[in-house]
């Protein structure tokens, strides 16, 4: 029972991080049919910038968060402008895949040169002593992760449903041409969705940083897990992302415990392949209608 509780609690925490990153994929895929293959690096940069704010500038963790979010928005806009917009113009899928990968490589290398290759500890804003609940050890930071992730996603949902700008984004995702007829500048919407996507990734970065080590290499594996979650949950459903994240997080933690930590990453791939084989649009996704 205690083991189960532990697996569940650790799995939920890790799963929510994956979900928040995957959420970023959804934002850009909905409006533009593209996503950032360097999303993990966006997270990494957010974490490192956050670290600098907190350690070098002595900023308070909570004040640092909006700064990092702003940085994320700028970084995301940059990625869209340099990597995605030219590819959309020439209608090349290969183009944006390769250029977002290339930008990810560049960001990682730049981070290595600025912050070094070592993994650095991130000071935690909350006490590091675990609490116990139903026999499981839960770190306060882990709870912050889950709460933070949910709050972020809810904020975006609120934005989409309640503000006119959010509705404009949903409209662009639904029918780009018609959105243009409404006076909506759809290319700006796409840039904005990339800015928002990197914002969520950077935010996830500072959430997870105190729980693990922060370094230039932290983005790669996380980005991949987020892929898996996006496919499992479906690239068109927010609920699916959360459920997908939780499933992946829990299955991974269980695998790590029962089999070995080395094999922890494998269930993600297997789940991915299974979902694609039987429900390609994801567990919660909707399939699109072809028009000829």
């Amino acid at each position, binding site marked *: 029972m205690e083991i189960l509780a532990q697996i569940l609690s650790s799995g939920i925490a890790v799963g929510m991080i994956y979900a928040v990153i995957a959420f970023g994929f959804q934002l850009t895929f909905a409006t533009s049919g593209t996503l950032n293959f360097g999303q993990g690096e966006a997270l990494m940069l957010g974490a490192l910038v956050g670290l600098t704010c907190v350690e070098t500038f002595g900023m308070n963790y909570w004040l640092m968060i909006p700064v990092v979010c702003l940085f994320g928005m700028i970084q995301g806009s940059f990625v869209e402008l340099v990597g995605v917009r030219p590819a959309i113009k020439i209608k090349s899928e290969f183009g944006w895949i390769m250029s977002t990968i290339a930008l990810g490589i560049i960001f990682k290398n730049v981070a290595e040169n600025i912050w070094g290759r070592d993994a650095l500890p991130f000071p935690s804003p909350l006490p590091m002593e675990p609490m116990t609940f139903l026999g499981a050890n839960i770190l306060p930071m882990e709870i912050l992760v889950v709460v933070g992730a949910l709050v972020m996603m809810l904020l975006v949902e609120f934005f989409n449903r309640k503000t006119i700008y959010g509705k404009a984004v949903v409209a662009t995702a639904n029918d780009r041409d018609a959105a243009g007829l409404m006076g909506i500048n759809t290319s700006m919407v796409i840039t904005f969705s990339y800015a928002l996507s990197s914002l969520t990734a950077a935010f996830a970065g500072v959430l997870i940083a105190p729980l693990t080590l922060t370094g230039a290499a932290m983005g790669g594996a996380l980005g991949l897990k987020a892929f898996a979650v996006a496919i499992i949950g479906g690239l068109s459903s927010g609920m699916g992302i959360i459920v997908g994240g939780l499933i992946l997080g829990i299955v991974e933690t269980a695998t790590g415990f029962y089999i070995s930590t080395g094999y922890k990453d494998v269930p993600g791939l297997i789940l991915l*392949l299974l979902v694609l*084989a039987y429900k390609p649009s994801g567990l919660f996704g909707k399939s699109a209608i072809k028009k000829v």
Partner: protein
Amino acid sequence: MMKLKSHIPLLIAIVGLFCLPIFIHNPYYIHLAETILIYTILLFGLDIVVGYIGQVSLGHAGLFGIGSYTAGVLFFHFGLPIWATIPASIIVTAIFGGILALPALKVIGPYLAMVTLAFGTIAQILINEMTWLTEGPLGIKIPKPELMGVPMTKAEYFWLVSAILIISLIVVDRFVKSQMGRAFEALRDSPVACDCMGVSVYRFKVIAFVISAGFAGLAGCLYAYSEQYISPNTYNNELAVLFLLGIIMGGRKSRLGAVIGAAIIVLLPKLLDDINLFRIVASIIAIVVLVGAGLALSKKVTTPKRVAVPLIGVVGLAAFSFWLDSISDWRLSIFGFMILLVVYYLQNGIVGFAKSFYQSIAGKTKTNRGEAVEETDDSVSFISAVANQNTGAELLKVDSILMQFGGLKALNNVSLSIKRGTIHGLIGPNGSGKSTMMNVLTGIYVPTAGNVLYAGQSVVGKTSSDIALSGIARTFQNVQLFGEMTAIQNILVGLHHTFKSNMVEIALHLSRYKKEEAEAHSRAMALLKFVGLEDLANEEARNLPYGKQRLLEIARALALDPELLLLDEPAAGLTAPDIKELMRIIRKIRDSGITFILIEHHMDVVMSVCDTVSVLDFGQKIAEGKPAEVQADEKVIHAYLGT
């Protein structure tokens, strides 16, 4: 004579390869050349995925690793010789390729890229973890393979790799020039048309990926014996990206491009490790691009705006290299930057760029491809006279079809009965459901309710390509030709169903394949002649005038040997003389016993050519009968004009 001339570069290459270890004794350079050859084999395969079917695979380093480790494991645990490990590597890697491709290619989108990226990472992790099988991070040592009991020398192994490369080259070349290659190109140009011509898009995407995996496995196996030591950290994501960069930089759909790409892959890391060498190369490239840009600008082939970015890019890169003291810290950034430049400014690779640069400078354009146009044999009956000439019997029964999209009833309880040997017109105002009906009949939409019986069998739920192969062919309202393929190649895709030969027969050019190819070619020419396009056989479809494109689509549909031909607004956008020609062709096709369903707005076409006309309005059938009756029908006049 033509054939021998085109083989000369290949012969020179073969001779050169075999002479290389004789004249160059430094083992470092032989090994370098050998690695280039091995990567070339992999890139031949990767090109099929990236160049021909237009998908991104980030997992080929992982597949490469599977090939190496299959050989390594079989040698280490079972002592198997190379003659066993080569086929084993190919087969095992191909199986992994299938496991990836079968789910990932079901959906349109970047899923293959995502899945292969995940796969590449996990393959590396697994190889590292499964120490009981792979020795993990320790790696496996493999000696050179034995030839008649004695280990091969460096030179002998080089010759073995060269021989396998030449064989791979010939095999890939034969694949892409065969019906398989045409299927690959067709599915990239227009997946919908491809399915409707009986070539299953999904199936061929998977086949393409599996073949590329096989080549990756072969390369991996040869690599293991070449390096004589394999370890997991070689097969990382950086290598996977490097493979893709190689294909793009070398040039897609080109064997020479693969060779150039492989050379770049091998030499690039060395370049990025040596600052002096990098400075020299970067400066040379900057100068070359400057001169080339100047030349192009002076000949007014390009604008300053277009050359600005790549020019600044390469000059900036060269300048950056001089500012750096050591390159190793920044090599990945430079690598990433190069990818960006190549992806946007060298899309057709060095090979493609050289071709178009030469053409624009020299002023030549060549859109005409293919062998000399063959003489057509008029005795070849190109339209298989339809077996069942039972004119008047019911061929197609559309039974109370309901097609609903959300709240929209595009087709509301529509029934039709199409009689053999007739031309049945389907008319109605815009949005009345005519094209929707076409899509239901050809399997693009699955009806919400109702049934479609073709020759007594239900076709609801069948795939488009199955429906096409059972005898229903179509053309499209917006012409869906395979634009980058020539006219005759378009027809040959329609004739895909006549090919029964398999990959082995293609690779070895066995007699059944050669016969099928020859017969298909003459039949295709006859079909082109029938629609008056025989002179344009080798012209790219997208360059044909609009009216001729429509005729080509009809000829392509005929290639399917259909019993039922669905024409979707064939006269749209045609001039009066073109329309006359169209009607003549339609009547002639009907005379061979083929039944038609014709959607058309040009009333003169409908009146003069159709036997029966059904009128749709608001998703429902409002009138049916002989053309003259329908034209005078009150309801029809009201539907169109509102009077």
